[in-house]
């Protein structure tokens, strides 16, 4: 891939007056610091302690997983979703979602985890794009989903032609089936994508692909979603907490538009539950803990009102946009409560078994 000619950060900062007249955005000032990261946000975007802790934990976990050390803090330039990231032009042409270049991450909130994996892998390996993007997708924490292209057909492709979903799911399958040690060897291996694979694993890439298509699930569960505190159980089928939504508090997340907190709800009995909050907005989404052999469709009665459907599923349960009584099946759920603006607020969040009346029909039989 040909990289678009672009001033380095240092050049741009030094010649900001000239360059920005020509249309270049200034790099955000690095205003947040953790042990491994220095983070700047565009347009004065806000990060709260929850965001920073999450990114720092992710990098620390990757260091351990990949048996490497980050020698110097990684500079992260983070664009807010409200400002189209592509307009910043800090990544090569055609790379609109984020990039890792010359020791720095340029990303938005959707791509930062992917780019942080690149930054950590860069400390010990320089894999070809299929394995590099595969690692970034497989290790960024979200679940991976079987793509609709063949790994072998992607081996020698560069972005944007390379299908990240295929590279990511195939890499995750290798991790799950052949372990971490070989996977680290793969990332370090030299040569083409094919050569790197075949000198690491005792099979051809075509043999591996045949096994992959025969046994890989539709989706592998996520590594680190729902990495939030539990909503405390306060009674039989009842959970409740008073949460201080303060950007400086652990587990509170923020953007330029608002702040909020996440909690994890663990349901052990299927039933109808009533969700209420005093906050402006509340939402619930499934934790993607489980692998899925086949796709789940919204509306499948086996999964209730918050199914682990492809693409994620978030249900707003406050205001007039959503319902507050939901059919929940056993599993973990991510609850979010938050508000627009950045002022500190105290929120009540309660989940309890709905008192009814609720409709009951027989469980579907096979």
């Amino acid at each position, binding site marked *: 891939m040909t990289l678009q000619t672009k001033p380095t950060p240092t050049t741009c900062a030094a010649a900001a007056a000239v360059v920005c007249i020509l249309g270049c955005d200034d790099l955000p000032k690095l205003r947040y610091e953790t042990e491994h990261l220095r983070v700047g946000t565009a347009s004065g975007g806000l990060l709260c302690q929850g965001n920073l802790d999450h990114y720092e934990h992710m990098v620390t976990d990757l260091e351990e997983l990949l048996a490497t050390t980050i020698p110097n803090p990684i500079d992260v330039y983070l664009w807010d979703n409200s400002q189209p990231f592509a307009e910043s032009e800090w990544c090569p042409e055609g790379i609109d979602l984020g990039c890792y270049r010359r020791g720095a991450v340029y990303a938005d909130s959707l791509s930062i985890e992917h780019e942080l994996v690149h930054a950590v892998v860069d400390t010990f390996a320089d894999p070809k794009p299929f394995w590099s993007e595969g690692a970034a997708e497989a290790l960024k924490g979200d679940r991976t989903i079987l793509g609709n*292209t063949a790994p072998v057909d992607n081996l020698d492709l560069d972005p944007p032609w390379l299908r990240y979903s295929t590279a990511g799911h195939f890499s995750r399958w290798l991790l799950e089936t052949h372990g971490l040690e070989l996977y680290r060897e793969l990332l370090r291996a030299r040569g083409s994508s094919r050569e790197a694979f075949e000198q690491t694993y005792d099979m051809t890439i075509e043999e591996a692909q045949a096994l992959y298509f025969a046994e890989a699930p539709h989706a592998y569960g996520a590594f680190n979603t729902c990495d939030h505190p539990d909503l405390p159980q306060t009674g039989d089928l009842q959970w409740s907490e008073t949460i201080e939504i303060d950007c400086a508090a652990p587990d509170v997340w923020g953007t330029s538009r608002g702040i909020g907190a996440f909690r994890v709800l663990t349901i052990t009995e299927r039933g*109808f539950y009533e969700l209420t909050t005093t906050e402006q907005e509340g939402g619930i989404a499934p934790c993607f803990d489980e692998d899925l052999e086949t796709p789940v469709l919204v509306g499948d009665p086996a999964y209730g009102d918050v199914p682990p459907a492809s693409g994620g599923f978030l249900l707003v349960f406050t205001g007039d946009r959503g319902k507050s009584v939901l059919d929940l099946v056993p599993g973990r759920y991510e609850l979010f409560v938050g508000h627009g603006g950045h002022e500190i607020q105290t929120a009540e969040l309660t989940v309890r078994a709905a*008192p*009814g009346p609720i*409709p*009951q029909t027989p469980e579907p039989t096979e």
Partner: protein
Amino acid sequence: MRRRLATLLILACCACAPDDGYPPLLDQAGDPCRSPYPSCLDDETVRECVDNVWVDRSCEESCADLGPAMLSMGCVVDGPLESCACVPEPGACAPATTACESDTELGYCDTGQVWVVYDCDSLCASSLATPISTGCMADEDGVAACWCVAG
């Protein structure tokens, strides 16, 4: 917040048209698959993901998978969704349909297309939170169910 935006992004990317240079899609008969979305090949034939492989078959075969007494009405395109339209044979029930048999009994069509009658007291008793039945009624959409409340 992040997940909702991610969902929007995925939906947006679904609209991206592939250009030359992209790898071929695995969407032909015999290709591996996990997709729940069939496609109509003609009025009577569908391509479906069966046992992780794309298979071309008639809608009669496809409908037979839903129950022993299902008839095919052909392959139907409804916006972005394509699938065989399957209806119960005359006199048979459609799997998962319900109807109130009395004020306290619910009829339910199981996957074998056998009509089974349930007592609402028993159905509600299986719910820890709402074990008390108030009887069988249809909701505003006409779907019948036993209605249960907390004890």
